[in-house]
């Protein structure tokens, strides 16, 4: 069973979703929770069985799909993808568990289960086409969630979300086809296998073009400035659960793809584009933080704040050294936990007041102390307080990028200031001061269902902030092998200069990543 655990992880929820149609409405919630719980247990088992000291792919499965065109159903996890998969299962569980009373909850849960399939699939896929399939498929349930359960502008938001990402990923698809074609030219066989592509050393100009093609697809998903405008709408209109999953997992697809595809496939292009992308990332960090400060709607604040944090992740990714990339991957998890929790928290007051306008609130700390405390913890995690999960990631990302550019890191570091500004300002508006609006005077504090979702997140946020080692080590190993691979592949002196050579980790470079020249 462990040989096929990834397939099981992917298709179990989908299957459960199909069966879900047969279940009566009232039983649906329990069904959803139990399915998600099983899935989560499986993912934990995966983690348990995962050998953190190995840097290569594990639990690999392969099944010919279109062999004549080089498309195979190949799966595998390494330290980079493992934890995001676990996180996805974790959040689906929390999301379904804390699902508040929604209209036809049955479809909602089924949709969530399908969404989970696509999420796990994206992170487990080792074949470009399989990856693309899940990548695109993940749009559909999300669009449905936003469009069917969202706010007044929901249709505009969902269509924008769909078309924007769809366009980007089609360009990316063309890039993938090019990649496969070059592989065909080089070796004489078609292949979309990622590990095959890793062996390819492309001439620089090709790298640049392909990098650009992939970049468009990924950047829109992340979303990077200036492709970010779909996100505020999507978050602003989506129901709580939608925002949570979107922020916690879906956005990570883009950054994950950067690490999985762009870096190892185009090391020289990555080195070449490092500075421009870093500048974009810095704009993301500062600009969106300022925009967040101007928001009136607490949910929009958090939406923009996620963009800001994604900027740090991008920065860490393009540090192109172990510290930075490891940090960025860890920050993916961190931001997933924190942003997810914050969106859940916003959902709590939204359920009570059906408004997200900060002007409607004030002095909530008097009436909802527990809520205020949890919110404060998560806010502090979000502004990167040490001993919380986000700090580790941000610290490492910035630390990593500092090796590449001092001044840019200094600019990006302004993020920790502006981040504090909008977060504290929002917190002050909502929780501090006297209770002015009598509607707020006797709001109930967080209930059990909400605590079920929030407490684990608080625990994780602090646990991984204090003791990130169990997660950091596997990530570190895998990242090392990727960086080494990039270094060995890089053909321009720029790449050689910017990508460090980790000679001492030579022995852990896996055999999939042995280099052969293209001729």
């Amino acid at each position, binding site marked *: 069973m462990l040989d096929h655990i990834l397939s099981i992880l992917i298709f179990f929820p989908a299957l459960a979703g199909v069966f879900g149609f047969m279940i009566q409405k009232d039983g649906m919630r329990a069904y959803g929770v139990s399915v998600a719980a099983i899935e989560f247990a499986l993912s934990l088992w995966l983690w348990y069985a995962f050998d953190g000291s190995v840097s290569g792919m594990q639990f690999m499965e392969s099944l010919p799909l279109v062999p004549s065109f080089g498309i195979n159903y190949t799966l595998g996890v390494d330290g980079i993808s493992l934890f995001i998969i676990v996180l996805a299962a974790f959040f689906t569980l929390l999301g379904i568990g804390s699902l508040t009373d929604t209209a036809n909850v049955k479809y909602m849960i089924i949709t969530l289960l399908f969404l989970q399939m696509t999420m796990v699939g994206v992170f487990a896929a080792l074949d470009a086409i399989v990856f693309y399939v899940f990548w695109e498929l993940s749009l559909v349930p999300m669009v449905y969630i936003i469009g069917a359960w969202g706010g007044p502008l929901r249709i505009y938001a969902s269509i924008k979300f769909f078309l924007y990402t769809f366009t980007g990923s089609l360009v990316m698809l063309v890039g993938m086809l090019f990649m496969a074609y070059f592989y065909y030219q080089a070796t004489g066989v078609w292949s979309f296998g990622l590990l095959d592509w890793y062996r390819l050393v492309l001439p620089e100009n090709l790298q640049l073009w392909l990098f650009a093609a992939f970049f468009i697809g990924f950047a829109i998903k992340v979303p990077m400035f200036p492709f970010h405008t779909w996100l505020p709408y999507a978050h602003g209109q989506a129901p709580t659960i939608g925002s949570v999953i979107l922020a916690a997992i879906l956005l990570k697809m883009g950054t994950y793809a950067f690490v999985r595809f762009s870096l190892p496939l185009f090391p020289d292009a990555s080195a070449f584009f490092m500075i421009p992308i870093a500048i974009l990332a810095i704009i993301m960090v500062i600009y969106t933080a300022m925009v967040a400060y101007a928001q009136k709607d607490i949910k929009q604040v958090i939406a923009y704040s996620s963009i800001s944090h994604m900027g740090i992740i991008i920065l860490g990714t393009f540090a192109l050294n172990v510290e930075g990339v*490891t940090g960025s991957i860890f920050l993916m998890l961190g931001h997933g936990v924190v942003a997810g929790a914050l969106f859940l928290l916003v959902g709590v007051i939204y359920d009570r007041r059906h408004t997200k306008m900060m002007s409607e609130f004030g002095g909530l700390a008097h009436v909802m102390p527990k809520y205020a405390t949890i919110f404060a913890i998560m806010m502090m995690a979000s502004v990167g307080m040490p001993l919380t999960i986000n700090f580790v990631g941000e610290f490492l990302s910035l630390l990593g990028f500092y090796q590449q550019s001092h001044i840019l890191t200094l600019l990006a570091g302004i993020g920790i200031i502006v981040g504090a500004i909008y977060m504290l300002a929002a917190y002050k508006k909502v929780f501090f001061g006297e209770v002015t609006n009598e509607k707020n005077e006797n709001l109930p504090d967080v209930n059990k269902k909400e605590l079920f979702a929030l407490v684990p997140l608080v625990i994780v946020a602090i646990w991984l902030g204090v003791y990130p080692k169990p997660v950091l080590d596997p990530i570190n190993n895998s990242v090392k092998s990727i960086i080494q691979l990039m270094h060995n592949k890089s053909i321009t002196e720029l790449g050689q200069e910017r990508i460090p050579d980790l000679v001492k980790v030579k022995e852990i470079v896996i055999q999939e990543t042995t280099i052969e020249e293209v001729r």
Partner: protein
Amino acid sequence: MEKYLYIALFAPLVSSLFSALFTATPKKMFTGIVASLLIFSSLVSSFVLLMYILDGGEPVHVEMMTWMATGHLYIPFGFIVDQVSVTMMMVVTLVSTIVHIYSIGYMDHDKGFNRFFSWLSAFVFSMMVLVMSDNYAGLFIGWEGVGLCSWGLIGFWFHKEVATWAANEAFIMNRIADLGMLIGIFLVYWNTGTLQYDGAFAAFSTLDTATLTWIGIFLFIGAMGKSAQFPLHTWLADAMEGPTPVSALIHAATMVTAGVYLVVRSGELYDLIPNVGLFIASLGAFVALFAASMALVNRDMKRIIAYSTLSQLGYMFAAAGLGAYWVALFHLMAHAFFKALLFLGAGNVMHAMHDELDPFKMGGLKKVMRWTWIMMTIASLALAGIFPFAGFFSKDTILEAAFAEHHFVIYGVLLFTAGLTAFYSFRLVALIFHGEERYKIFGIHPHEAYRFMLIAMSPLLILAMIAGVFQVPFFEMVEEILNAHEYHIHSHTTLLIMLVGTQVFVALAILYAYKKYASWSSVPDGTSAIENSFVYKLLYNQYYIPYFYEEYIVKSYKEMSEVFWTKVDMKIVDATVDGIAGIIYGTGEKTRDMQSGNLSTMLKWMVAGLVGLLSLAVVFGLAARYSDEILSILSALGV
């Protein structure tokens, strides 16, 4: 020894978590007591460690566990107790124990009683981490931790707008400095490959001066934030919105001195870059004067004390900058005692006066609050540096150091500031405790604080009086790691003249203050000539710096954010995207009537298409047939 270390470190955490359990519940007296006991245990173990170190024991160094490890980076939770950190531990635990006990009384009627103790102990824990950590990352944990706790404690009365505003201001200003600190840490890592003190210090000597200078500057920026040095000083005065015990503990004794601690800790770095040191010293001297001048005219008891704290921090930085680390540290310790005492006294007064802060509305309180009066007077004497109180030994050593290092400007500034210090301290004392009972106008019936609060304060009183005797043993202790040397003015007479002169100068200032304010009768209403003089206004408005920040930085930031959102994000970035979609859709709308549905139009389209193809064909055909001619023509044209 390690178990003492762990007790000293984690007792506060335990106490914080314990009190945190009851935050949601109404006041529980025992939380305060338990918290105080735990902090006290921390104090005891710190004392044990101090004794151990005094006996010349090896510094205690433990590595609890790994925190972050990736690439070459390795950061453990490592803690060290050596001569420097043990001093800080003593100061921190001692003052905080007293403040805890004091607070039981002070926060008596507050419904946030339990929450208060939770925050307070959390602060102590962060402070202990800060001082005990054996690497810069760990220091940074504590650094941010104390910032967080001060945020929570300044904004403790979160129903007060000003309080929460001040809390955010403090947090954000510290963040600005923290960025500098962070960059400093990055520099240390990428240049030395480690963040451990010992490793880094060992590597520093191999680095070129430029790098070291940058490291020194960035680390000092961090220090400037925490120690509220100019231009990041405004938050400290506003932080007085917090409960007074908090001001005593955080904004007088411990947190604000973290910056000094950092500089002292990194002494080996700053020894290598004297220029930066000089800059630090000059800035310190400037701040000392600057803050003192603002304290002269202020009418808010706590703010006056806050400014004096600021000014004393300036002294410490002056000393540290001049390389007299042990002096700085000693002054830090002494200052912690008498300043905390001063604040707690002020706290008593506030209680008595129902949170009235304007000393002009008090007066003659010594009748009802004898003990408080005595304590505050002695504390002020110590602050003013009158023999034989604590301040004399610490402060005059700084002056001597400045003199001995031949930085006479700094010396002069500091000397002058000493006079100002004396003046405003006793202006305060005089206004509060002497003269007519102006408070009667406001119908207030002051009363002395609880007995146990006074008893709790007594250790500070004693220390404020006798701390000077520790100077020699302290010096002997710290000289092992800090390159300390006694500052001896060569000729004995000069020294004598200096000491006496200083004393006289200070005494005169005190007398002048008494003469001017001891018999004050009226409450100034902003009409008198002096209050309308430019200098007064300038000082009273803190040189208009807060105003400047508010007008030109905060406001413009707000406006810029608005612009970014409404104009840039909505009108440009988003509009472009929608615009592209709109263009595509619009083209469809416009061209759709090509499909007029009329048959003959359709036929015309077909024929048109054919004709188009034909004409293209003809063109190409001719081009192909006469290609040679065309080529020749083109070549003739030079294409």
